């Protein structure tokens, strides 16, 4: 019986995996304990991977199954009516898009600029070490604390009021640690030789960064930016006191207006309004999920496009 086993072992990986049903059989006939142990190990690892995936699929599946019925053109394009129990969620969608855009405008230049400074210019001094430590700790601060900071800093002290401006700035500060640390990593991953070569050809440090380093690090930077923005787009606590409106039957007109937003709207209709049809709740969750996931897909496409052009 060892002959077919030998044949199987010499087969290609593709064939091996297709013969998975007979694997246990083979192990019985031969004394390949190591083989068995290895299979067991892989099985456990596969199980662990499955455990990660199952809840995600369940969450998405539940929301899609229960929320799909609510999605209609009216739901996406109309104002809420009858105490938000009917009509659409347009102001919340628009509000979230505006906030995300505002966050991007505020966070990208500062975040990428800071990363370039840390990775390319700043040496390893106590000051830069303190800055890095601060950034890491900033990422660990609970989001409601950012909300309170935004309230104190932007709403009250700078007198922006409860507004898109104050909310965007608060979210920008919250997403900065992610943007800076991933962008810095991406810059550091570009081989140091490119900097040396650029310098040896009479390039200034900035010319090397602009022409070589930054383009090469772009996929990683984009990843960081989108991750940071996604986190901001889905947050509730930081916008609670800085921008979010309970109910606003019109779209914001200036950056100093309040606005409804998807995460806060979801919170409101799930906990604050009695007798809310579940379909609307799940529908709102589905729209938020769809928005976040589609941003994610866009990020992946941009990243893989640039990665294919990368040359090291």
């Amino acid at each position: 019986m060892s002959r077919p086993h030998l044949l199987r072992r010499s087969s290609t990986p593709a064939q091996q995996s297709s013969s998975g049903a007979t694997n246990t059989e083979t192990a019985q006939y031969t004394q390949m304990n190591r083989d068995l142990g290895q299979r067991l190990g892989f099985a456990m690892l596969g199980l662990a991977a499955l455990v990660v995936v199952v809840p995600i699929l369940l969450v998405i599946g539940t929301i899609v199954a229960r929320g799909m019925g609510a999605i209609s053109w009216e739901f996406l394009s109309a104002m809420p009516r009858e105490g938000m129990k009917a009509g659409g969620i347009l102001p919340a969608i628009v509000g979230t898009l505006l906030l995300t855009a505002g966050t991007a405008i505020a966070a990208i230049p500062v975040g990428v600029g800071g990363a370039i400074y840390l990775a390319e210019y700043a040496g390893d001094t106590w000051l830069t070490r303190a800055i890095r430590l601060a950034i890491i700790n900033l990422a660990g601060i609970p989001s409601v604390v950012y909300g309170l900071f935004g309230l104190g800093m932007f709403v009250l002290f700078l007198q922006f009021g409860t507004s898109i401006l104050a909310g965007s700035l608060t979210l920008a500060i919250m997403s900065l640690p992610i943007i800076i640390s991933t962008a810095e990593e991406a810059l550091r991953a570009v081989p140091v030789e490119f900097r040396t070569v650029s310098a040896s050809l009479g390039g200034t440090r900035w010319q090397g960064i602009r022409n070589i380093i930054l383009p090469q690090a772009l996929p990683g930077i984009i990843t960081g930016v989108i991750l940071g923005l996604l986190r901001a787009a889905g947050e509730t606590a930081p916008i609670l006191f800085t921008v979010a409106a309970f109910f606003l039957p019109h779209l914001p007109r200036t950056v100093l207006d309040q606005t409804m937003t998807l995460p806060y709207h979801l919170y409101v209709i799930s906990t604050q309004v009695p007798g809310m049809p579940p379909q609307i709740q799940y529908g709102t969750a589905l729209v938020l999920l769809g928005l976040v996931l589609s941003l994610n897909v866009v990020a992946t496409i941009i990243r893989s496009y640039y990665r294919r052009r990368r040359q090291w």
Partner: protein
Amino acid sequence: MVTKAERQMTNDEPLSSALGLPSKIRIEEVSYSYSGKSALRDVTLDVPAKAVTVVFGPAGGGKTTLLRLVNRLNDLVEGTQMSGRILLDGQDIYASGIDVPALRRRVGMVFALPLPLPGTVRQNVIYGPRLAGMRDPIRQAETIERSLRQAALWDEVKDRLDDPARALSGGQQQRLCIARSLALEPEVLLLDEPTSGLDPISTAKVEESLYQLKQQYTIVIVPHSVQQAARVADHAAFFLMGELIEQRPGREMFTAPRHQRTEDYVTGRFG
């Protein structure tokens, strides 16, 4: 340790005057250390103009460090200390107020490994001139052809100028890197084991182009073998453990070295 007296005995006459050539680079009593570890000790060396000067010796002798000091690439490294002076045409390149990018355009460098930048062959060659402000496409095209011809690469890549530089073979990539330096029309070309990763045919091509280039350029090369050193040297300087042991015209260095350790190395007794 080589004592100062001993060195003066072996180098009683300046190298360039012995060859009747003007000195292009003068390295004066240069000592250099990385984070406390000494890499060069009290090195004084004259590099004659329009000739090939070979800087050779066993690994760890400070040859690469010396090259990187001449175009100030070691500025990029932190925690280093240098004393002494390096003069290019009589001007101290470490004096304050020196335009370092401009210096690096005058003193080109080719590294041990071919390191093409991301992008096409054309973009690689024109990178330096473009940063220096060359915008005119006609001048760019002329520069590209001239540099690639000088590096003996033009015939192989003239139809592939817009291919990624990475698509070239290793030998072609290294000649591309030479062309990239030549595009800036430097006065001095520093080559740090430029043929270490190359096959014999590519090596011969690179050496052949060196022979052409020395009509116009001052060349300092760290060779990848003693044989190569002997083949290309007009002048030679032998480095051991961060010290310059002796500097002589090439023919004498490899046929009749004065210093025992040089002879041992040249004849293959160590290294």
